[in-house]
């Protein structure tokens, strides 16, 4: 008999559910510090450069602070959608592809009307972007509901398909006709005012995508706590059998969760291509769709948690860039750091779901 054993809690501990993300962040900082020391950096300087300087350094702060919202916006949008499915046990891991397709479809619709000055162009692009992402997510959703095909693998495979479509359109269909043959579309943010997604308040980084992210967080919170669909999602995740008896239709749930996540990822892509990125290029996507998976878990699959987690993850991106610039730290170190965060979080979840008992179990009986 082992000395340490785990006893399942009847319901996850609320205290530990709130504490584990903090514990995971601290553990990741310690392990990350060791990693940075191993790579030849002073761990304290590295941690400070990543987590403190982007916000509070008098020299870099003014440049970095707006980037926080620019990077957090798409992460929060995508993660909020993914979390809906994750809570119901539906695993959409192809958000990166839905993000690409949202940007491609939205930008394509906008470019079709170039050089219109109509104020309807941007709203039309927003709707098209959401539809692009939605349609891409409907492929695994429909295959899952019609044939029972594994949505994890299909959604992931579609990321590679979307990347190839992106490569194709950026040097073909959507290529800038005045771009002297270089791949990449017209710059929507710079050369097409009706289609651009500008910074709304100077110096804050706030653009329409960030506004959308905040609205989505509120709507999702209401959905999860006040609406029947939110109840169905939670029930399906926590007690699948009970959900079936309660009349929750698995097919409807799959279509809703994947569809919403796809539409939100598509929106994120559209706001990115019309704003911070500016144009469709072959390397337009930078992995937000995958990082958002970490954000969703770090935020405990809860909208408000995801808001905070998105900001924290955005900070590691900006801090990572700063560390690259100031200390010459490789970009991959930050990617590794983010991966570690997810590991620690999942590992620490044991405290939320189980009581740790020390001693011989036979005595307890």
């Amino acid at each position, binding site marked *: 008999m082992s000395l340490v054993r785990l006893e399942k809690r009847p319901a996850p501990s609320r205290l530990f559910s709130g504490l584990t993300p903090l514990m995971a962040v601290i553990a990741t900082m310690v392990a990350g510090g060791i990693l940075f020391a191993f790579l030849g950096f002073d761990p304290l300087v590295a941690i400070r450069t990543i987590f403190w300087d982007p916000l509070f350094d008098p020299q870099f702060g003014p440049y970095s602070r707006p980037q926080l919202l620019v990077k957090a916006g798409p992460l929060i949008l995508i993660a909020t959608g993914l979390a809906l499915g994750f809570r119901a046990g539906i695993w959409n891991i192809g958000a990166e592809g839905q993000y690409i397709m949202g940007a491609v479809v939205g930008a394509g619709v906008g470019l079709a009307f170039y050089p219109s000055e109509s104020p309807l162009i941007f709203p039309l692009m927003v709707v098209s972007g959401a539809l692009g992402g939605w349609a891409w997510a409907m492929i695994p959703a429909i295959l899952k509901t019609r044939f029972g095909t*594994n949505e994890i*693998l299909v959604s992931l495979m579609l990321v590679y398909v979307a990347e190839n479509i992106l490569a194709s359109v950026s040097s073909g269909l959507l290529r800038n006709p005045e771009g002297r043959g270089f791949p990449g579309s017209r710059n929507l943010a710079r050369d097409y005012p009706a289609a651009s997604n500008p910074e709304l308040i100077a110096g804050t980084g706030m653009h329409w995508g960030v506004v959308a992210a905040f609205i989505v967080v509120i709507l999702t919170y209401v959905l999860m706590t006040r609406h029947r669909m939110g109840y169905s999602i939670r029930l399906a995740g926590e007690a699948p059998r009970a959900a079936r008896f309660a009349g929750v239709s698995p097919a409807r749930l799959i279509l809703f969760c994947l569809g919403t996540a796809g539409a939100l990822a598509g929106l994120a892509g559209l706001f990115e291509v019309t704003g911070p990125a500016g144009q469709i290029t072959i390397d337009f996507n930078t992995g937000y769709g995958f990082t958002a998976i970490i954000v969703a*878990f770090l935020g405990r699959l809860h909208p408000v948690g995801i808001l905070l987690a998105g900001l924290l993850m955005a900070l590691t991106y900006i801090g990572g860039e700063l560390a690259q610039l100031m200390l010459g730290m*490789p970009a991959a*170190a930050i990617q590794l750091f983010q991966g*570690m965060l*997810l590991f620690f979080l*999942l590992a620490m979840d044991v405290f939320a779901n189980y009581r740790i008992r020390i001693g011989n*179990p036979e005595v307890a009986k």
Partner: protein
Amino acid sequence: MDSINPILLIASLMVASTPILLAALGEMVVEKSGVLNLGVEGMMITGAVVGFAIGVNTGSSSLGFVVAALAGAGLSMVFAIITQLLLSNQVATGLGLTLFGLGLSSLIGKPYVGIKAPGFAKLDIPLLSDIPVLGPILFRHDPMVYLSLLMVALVWYLLTYTRAGLVLRAVGENHAAAHALGYKVVRVRFMAIAFGGAMAGLGGAYVSLVRVPQWVEGMTAGAGWIALAIVVFASWRPWRILLGAYLFGGINVLQLNLQAAGSTIPVEYLSMSPYLVTILVLVIISVRGNHGAPGSLSRVFHASH
């Protein structure tokens, strides 16, 4: 369009299929024990970079393969500890392993970009390799191709005819019953996960040391995910894994040959074909019904006493 030499095509099919075959075979054993490890891509890419680094530094590809297998197994132990001892969700943890492996590999691989692999000698099997048609197709490969085929037979034999295989299957089909019978569920799964990690590491190293052969960031390009799909395609049977891997390898080689031969189909559409075919095959398999998935697959095992 130039014509494509069918003999060379089939010979290169075997080379193209070997990484997926190794990884899929390893993952099949993991899933047979009731564990779903979605970290195959992460372990493959780590194996690719570690195998390449060791190969370049020592000049020995064989040593590269050995260390790559150890690296894959080592990384899989992180997954094993978190899922088996700390009872985390296997899907989320596997995804984490893939993200972690991608970061780790690009960190390790930085100094090795643009360097050539040390080379890996082929075994020109005497006499047999001189047989017309069959010789070049079957008997002029490197040892890893034959090792991968040998592993298929070995895994098949162990799973079907030995006590160890029976215990592994019992643990995967019904972990509660296996536990009640006194089998060490967690220990068996640790061993299966380590095997899966080692095989993924070998598969990755084959990509960087033989197939390409150099280190490029993200070079496994979804091979780990295709390996996962092949396990489903194969209904968890070793010989069908071989069939599936060679089928996908064949499609990949064909599309690459069409690209090289200057086909009128745009490159991007050819490049996406293996992924589309994977989806198509998954759909066909699911229409037929998912027969053969181990009963306890992906479920958390927690012995309450």
